[in-house]
């Protein structure tokens, strides 16, 4: 499996110019997408599907800050272990609980604006953590792994909030 940064010819680092990533992604898909191989042999169609799949996967991983940080750590041989390692500092857990409570209140009151505000608050928090992880990835990778776990926590709550909004809108 090719290194995703190398695949897009981008420097292997957390800071990333999304417009360059987008442009590289489109150029790659323009060459390898199955639509370019409709009349090709089955062997080439298979290659095209596999490569286009890989390009999509790499694009998704690099585009999202949490998965990009996780991937950079993985390249250094550090597993973020989000499934099993759920130990978090007390203050972060407190914030978590507050968000969950705010979610429950909004559910009871069918308050979509409150949920939007909650999403905004979590985005601000995530931005700060992304700044932090950018500095930690090379200098303090173990620390960075914890930050990635925190980011994953926030992503998870955000997903749940979005799902709740969708439910309330029905």
């Amino acid at each position, binding site marked *: 499996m090719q290194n995703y940064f190398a695949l*897009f010819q981008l420097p292997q680092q957390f800071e990333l110019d999304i417009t360059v990533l987008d442009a590289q992604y489109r150029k790659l898909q323009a060459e390898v997408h*199955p639509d370019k191989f409709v009349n090709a042999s*089955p062997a080439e169609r298979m290659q095209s599907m596999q490569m286009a799949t890989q390009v999509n996967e790499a694009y998704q991983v690099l585009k999202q800050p949490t998965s990009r940080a996780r991937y950079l750590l993985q390249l250094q041989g550090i597993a973020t272990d989000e499934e099993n390692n759920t130990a978090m500092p007390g203050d972060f857990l407190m914030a978590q609980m507050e968000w969950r409570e705010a979610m429950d209140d909004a559910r009871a009151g069918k308050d979509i604006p409150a949920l939007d505000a909650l999403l905004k608050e979590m985005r601000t928090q995530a931005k700060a953590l992304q700044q932090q992880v950018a500095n930690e990835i090379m200098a303090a990778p173990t620390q960075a792994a914890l930050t990635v776990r925190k980011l994953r926590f926030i992503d998870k709550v955000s997903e749940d909030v979005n799902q709740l909004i969708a439910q309330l809108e029905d």
Partner: protein
Amino acid sequence: MALLQISEPGLSPAPHQHKLAVGIDLGTTNSLVATVRSGMSTVLHDEHGHALLPSVVRYLQDSIIVGHEAQAAQSLDPVNTIVSVKRFMGRALHDITDRAHIPYHFVENDSSQGILEIKTRAGLKSPVEISAEILKTLKARAEKALGGELTGAVITVPAYFDDAQRQATKDAARLAGLHVLRLLNEPTAAAVAYGLDNAAEGVYVIYDLGGGTFDISILRLSKGVFEVLATNGDSALGGDDFDHRIFCWVLDQVRSKTKDFKPLSEEDTRLLLTKARQAKEWLTDNHEANIVCKLSNGALVDETLSVAQFVTLTEHLVIKTLSPTRKAMRDAGLSIDEIKGVVLVGGATRMPHIRHAVQAFFEQEPLTNLDPDKVVALGAAIQANVLAGNRSGDELLLLDITPLSLGLETMGGLVEKVIPRNSTLPIARAQDFTTYKDGQTAMAIHVVQGERELVSDCRSLARFELRGIPPMAAGAARIRVTFQVDADGLLSVSAREQTNGVEANITVKPSYGLNEDQITSMLKDSFGAAESDKAARMLREAVVDAQRLIEAIQAALAEDGDTLLNADERQQIQTHIDALLALCQGTDSHAVKQASDALNHATEDFAAKRMDASVQKALAGKNLDSLEL
């Protein structure tokens, strides 16, 4: 300066030939076929000048009638005249909730796990077979208009169609003898037609309300790249539902005025539905519609429906389209002011109150400069033309997504999502599973599609059993299940035991739709009864496929054979080509197929090298671009 290309003696490249490729919009109410002629996408007409083919199929004792003539007979012969068959594609009988109002004799096919069939005087007909009749008619129209056999077709499906519905559509095309270049999502097709026509750039919303389906798609258009950001919809909501509201209203009026009103006959149901549709269309440009007809029991229907009444009757249907719209906007992470334009697609968007609702929601007037009935077919034709290879060096690239999440059933009837909705295609994802008991050697895997948490609320796509797991302690086995969704949006699933590499053989049995055997037998039936006919047809198909393969490989060799292969490797491939060419002169279709497989296999390394070279080439172009700045 470009280098002159000179081909090897005796191996002259095929003369540049315009391939006959079409785009087909297989609609709930109407179907169309379009093609690109002299650079322009054009809808093809029948001999009476009709562009729209009503998606109506009438079965007579010995013949089948499709289109206007069938539509005209629907009130006379409702049981054998099938309209809106698209609603039943990939569906089981229990999925059809309003069948009390549909005049067909539905039957559950016992061999295909609940797939529905319709009893006609010509026998049981599946929705796939009925749809194939519509496709055959369009194929014949196109071949007559273009004066030759079609090389391929792009067929459109609602973006919100699930795997079973897509598979059914592809089966119908195969049954009609069409080579499917791609299944294309209707809103994406519309975006292609609209975007290329208007040189549009930016984020556009396609609001597509057809006869029986509703899709909303949000796309980013940029330099010929059409990137779908989010899609949502309702595959059982369309113009038909508006007709149905009018139908129910008329029925209520008549009932309240008539003593001991008898239940409607099938003929009367169809008659009133037709009157309802006509009233709906009339109300687009008029303030009120008169609904007048005589029922078979002698009762006279004479009602007047005003626009205001119609709006009240159908307001909830309009609102029902806005919920998926909001969800798609959220999934795309966009606000209203980021939307550059809203394109209306589908005949049902002609209704003024739909237009007003869309305008109010997006705070801008929707775009209607392309005929909402034709735009999908026009876009499909453009894509077909590109895929057939008639346009080279073009910039058109469609990046489409999965409309619905794919997952597996886990303990307690819960769904574990493996591929989330709105993932760009093609996509593959793997999920590891383990055994629950000591010594367990088999595992049941249930694939579902949908957004809900409970398996029972999602659509069941396939069930299969993974056998041959080596006996181990509970939790020790590692079974990796891989989902692959291709560019058509079709799913395939494979499974492998990881710890000792045993690949258990699995076949995914479609819960709905046809399996390979059923398709083959239907195709054989359609070849005619004589054994020799079948053999001849099989041979012809094998030879056509072989020629297509040789052509593709020779094109690849001409491009990259000198740079990527040494003389030995090249000779090996050539030997396989020569062997296959020789067999194509013979009469053994099985041998032709085997030699085709062998040739394909012999080119696998070459294909991998070419792909690597493509990747290098893609990004090497970056330097050129930056120079142009």
